């Protein structure tokens, strides 16, 4: 392992920055595409930018301990503003950039934000809208000047003007920056991240420099990452994972982080950068696979044949080769040929050709999706993490990767399962407290540093890996006493490419039922190939053929569930296909796209009631929110179908094994 990781004096990000300027001044620290061309900034360039910005912020009045909100897409300037704030001992608070103004108002007010550094006019407008509700907010700094030339409020500042003022301030106070950086320490608060809040208001998780830097370093050590990694920062900056992968680990290991040109160009930027280290939530991998399959369906016959032949071969030996298990010479040679003809070009199109390590987390991933990527030779692994400990709780070790577990504890992490089956952990990454919320802190974190995850799970007897079934509070019971784990069933449903979202009900009911959201791309393509006409989502979702298609998926899940003696009775009896896609703007999903089951249940109470009646149809009117915040009404008659129920296998799995 590299000597420099051991240095303990580098306990803040600005100090790490200074060390990179000494160690690798000319190597790229950041890249971003501008006017169609990748521009890069070396560590030395970045340090100059950050210093000028930090001095400018200090000149404007930002002081130690105060909060700087950061709102926008992933851009080098916004990452620099994090370091600049940290250099002054101020605390960066990144927010989800697509949140509507009301959601931002809560966080800005709760966090006592004094400065907001935002990307563009869209965000400035939101800030102006909510300024009255955020009494502590004094200054707003914007990066992109477009459309802002007529905004003349004196609390609005151009990023570049702040840097210019900073350069002058630096000139007049030459020792200021170094003194401020030297005053920083490991136990100071490094960053405040708001949890997405599946329930109630979001909470500000306060993480110290030690929390972040030690955890980032442990992750780097475990996976053997170096300063040569390539990373594309494309996930929201407000999310803990982005802060770890695109910021903290870059500063600790010294690798370059590239920012996409635009949120819509990520796929092509990914391909051009070719990241060696990559994180994506399962849905991104699912989408990529769906796109590949859709395009292959439309490809010429010969191409389809070659593709399916070699993919079949990859399924047979690809995972073994990735795990360095022995395979026959013939299989090995055939795999190499496949690599030239299919796997290589395919990985290239996906932008994963150089990927040495790909993580996924957040939701369960379908086994066949997982195997698809692994059989191509992409080392995709699951991890289990939380904002409260700067991500890492468990990581799958190389060569021990299973679709249904999340691996073994990360370095320095202790895990125990409490009496209720809830997973608890303790690690150097464990957060200090929730901001201004001692009750939640006390109920989440024990006196001796153990954190409640809220997840139910157990260690698998066979391989010692942690297995997660559901949120502890979501695990319920049917009226007959059968265990009911809705997430577990929903995940099984979502493994079908036709199912985009599923919401399963059944707690304290006689049987389970499901709301289904179809995947418009996959089902639409399926319908087109059958010459089925449809005018849009609502029309497609209501067709009998589509109901039959979804019924087949549910039947398979039921068959699967029937094999499990504990969960067998929670097979889905009745289901419906929702007339609209669940949407974060309507509050149905969190900003990280997790379904808020109870909210959806309340909102569509009439549909839930219909599922538990003997009706075969239900009329519903729904208010929808458009992207610009306006609302409209949507009406539909929704059909309700019954699914097939299978006899439960009374033999337990363990007995069978």
């Amino acid at each position, binding site marked *: 392992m590299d000597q420099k990781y051991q240095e303990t004096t580098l306990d803040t990000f600005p100090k790490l920055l200074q060390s990179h300027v000494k160690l690798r001044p000319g190597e790229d620290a950041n890249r971003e595409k501008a*006017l169609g061309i990748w521009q890069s900034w070396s560590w030395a360039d970045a340090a100059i930018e950050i210093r000028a910005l930090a001095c400018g912020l200090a000149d404007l009045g930002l002081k130690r301990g105060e909060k700087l909100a950061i709102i926008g897409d992933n851009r080098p300037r916004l990452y620099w503003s994090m370091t600049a704030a940290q250099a002054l001992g101020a605390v960066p608070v990144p927010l989800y950039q697509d949140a509507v103004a009301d959601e931002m108002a809560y966080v800005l007010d709760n966090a006592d934000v004094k400065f907001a550094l935002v990307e563009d006019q869209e965000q400035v407008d939101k800030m102006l809208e909510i300024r009255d509700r955020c009494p502590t907010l004094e200054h707003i700094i914007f990066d992109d000047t477009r*459309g802002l*030339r*007529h905004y003349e409020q004196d609390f609005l500042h151009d990023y570049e003007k702040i840097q210019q003022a900073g350069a002058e301030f630096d000139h007049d106070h030459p020792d200021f920056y170094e003194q401020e950086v030297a005053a920083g320490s490991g136990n100071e608060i490094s960053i405040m991240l708001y949890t997405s809040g599946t329930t109630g208001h979001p909470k500000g998780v306060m993480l110290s420099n030690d929390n972040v830097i030690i955890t980032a370093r442990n992750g780097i050590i475990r996976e053997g990452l170096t300063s040569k990694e390539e990373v594309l920062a494309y996930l929201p900056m407000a999310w803990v994972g982005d802060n770890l992968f695109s910021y903290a680990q870059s500063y600790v290991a010294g690798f370059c982080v590239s920012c996409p040109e635009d949120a819509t160009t990520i796929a092509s930027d990914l391909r051009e950068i070719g990241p060696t280290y990559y994180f994506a939530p399962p849905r991104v991998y699912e989408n990529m696979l769906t796109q590949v399959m859709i395009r292959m369906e439309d490809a010429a016959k010969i191409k389809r044949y070659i593709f399916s032949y070699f993919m079949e071969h990859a399924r047979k030996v690809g995972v073994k080769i990735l795990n360095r298990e022995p395979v026959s010479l013939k299989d090995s040679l055939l795999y190499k040929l496949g690599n030239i003809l299919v796997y290589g070009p395919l990985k290239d199109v996906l932008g994963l050709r150089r990927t040495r390590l790909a993580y996924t987390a957040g939701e369960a991933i379908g086994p066949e999706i997982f195997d698809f990527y692994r059989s191509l030779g992409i080392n995709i692994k699951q991890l289990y993490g939380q904002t409260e400990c700067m991500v890492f709780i468990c990581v799958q070790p190389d060569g021990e990767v299973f679709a249904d577990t999340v691996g073994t504890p990360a370095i320095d992490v202790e895990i125990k399962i409490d009496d209720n089956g809830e997973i608890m952990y303790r690690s150097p990454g464990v957060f200090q407290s929730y901001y201004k919320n001692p009750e939640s802190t006390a109920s989440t974190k024990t006196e001796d540093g153990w954190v409640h995850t809220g997840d139910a799970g157990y260690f698998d007897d066979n391989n010692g890996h942690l297995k997660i079934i559901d949120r502890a509070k979501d695990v319920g019971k049917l009226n007959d006493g059968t265990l009911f784990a809705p997430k577990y069933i929903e995940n099984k449903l979502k493994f079908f490419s036709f199912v985009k979202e599923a919401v399963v009900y059944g707690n304290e009911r006689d049987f389970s039922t499901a709301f289904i959201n179809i995947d418009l791309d996959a089902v639409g393509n399926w319908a087109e190939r059958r010459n089925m006409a449809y005018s849009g989502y609502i029309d497609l979702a209501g067709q009998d053929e589509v109901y039959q298609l979804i019924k087949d998926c549910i039947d398979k899940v039921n068959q699967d569930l029937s094999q499990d003696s504990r969960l067998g009775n929670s097979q889905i009896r009745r289901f419906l296909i929702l007339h609209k896609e669940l949407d974060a703007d309507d509050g149905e999903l969190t900003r990280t796209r997790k379904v808020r089951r109870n909210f959806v249940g309340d909102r569509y109470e009439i549909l839930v009631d219909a599922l538990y009646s003997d009706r075969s149809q239900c009329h519903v009117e729904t208010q929808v929110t458009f*992207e610009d915040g306006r609302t409209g009404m949507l009406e539909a008659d929704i059909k309700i179908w019954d699914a097939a129920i299978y006899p439960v296998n009374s033999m337990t799995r363990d007995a069978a094994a």
Partner: protein
Amino acid sequence: MNEHSIGGEILKVENISLSFGIMKVLDDISFDIKQGEIRSIIGPNGAGKSSMLNVINGFYHPQEGSITFKGETRKQMAPHVAASHGIARTFQNIALFKGMSTLDNIMTGRNLKMKTNLFWQALHIGPARAEELENREAAEKIIDFLDIQAIRKKPVGKLPYGLQKRVELGRALAAEPELLLLDEPMAGMNSEEKEDMCRFVLDVNAEFGTTIALIEHDMSVVMDLSDRVLVLDYGKQLADGLPDKVRNNQDVIDAYLGIPHEQA
């Protein structure tokens, strides 16, 4: 209204009459467009709005009247002359090169800015190379401005309608026009696409100081964007003035409600 500065006259149209055979399309129309303003031309279907734009950019030649653009008065002007004098336009029915990429379509808008000849361009060395880079940069700035990076290399024929409209605006902007003629830029768009397009029209006007003549059916768009509005009906000039004044003009209301004619 808009916060931009409005200067002197850039275009003056005097007593224009245009006929196709016995069909009188424009009848004695006179108005002016001032530097930096957004000037709308509205009217029911068949009022002569598009014909008016075609007259301005030299595609139709009026039988009577004169056009003064930047102080030069002429009766007729060929479209390529109009283009080289700084008039660019978009069309009611999109007129892009469907098989070419967004970038290439926008680059065609730079055509008049290219000085080197085919020989140098084919060799792609020396001045031709420098010129290509300069034009590419200008095109990329427009791509950035219109937020169409993701479709830079896609053939425009495969793009949704709203995006094609945006590319067409990009191509018109590539000519760095002083006067931009937009023929129903929001036709067939949903409310979100319309809002985007309005934002772009305002931004073009504010950031580049481009004078804009706009034909549009959506009254709320016209009333919000325009500095002044000209109303045509069956080739005749019905009203001309500030949006509020036009909105309350009884003749205009009648024309739109179809009182004098059966057509709405």
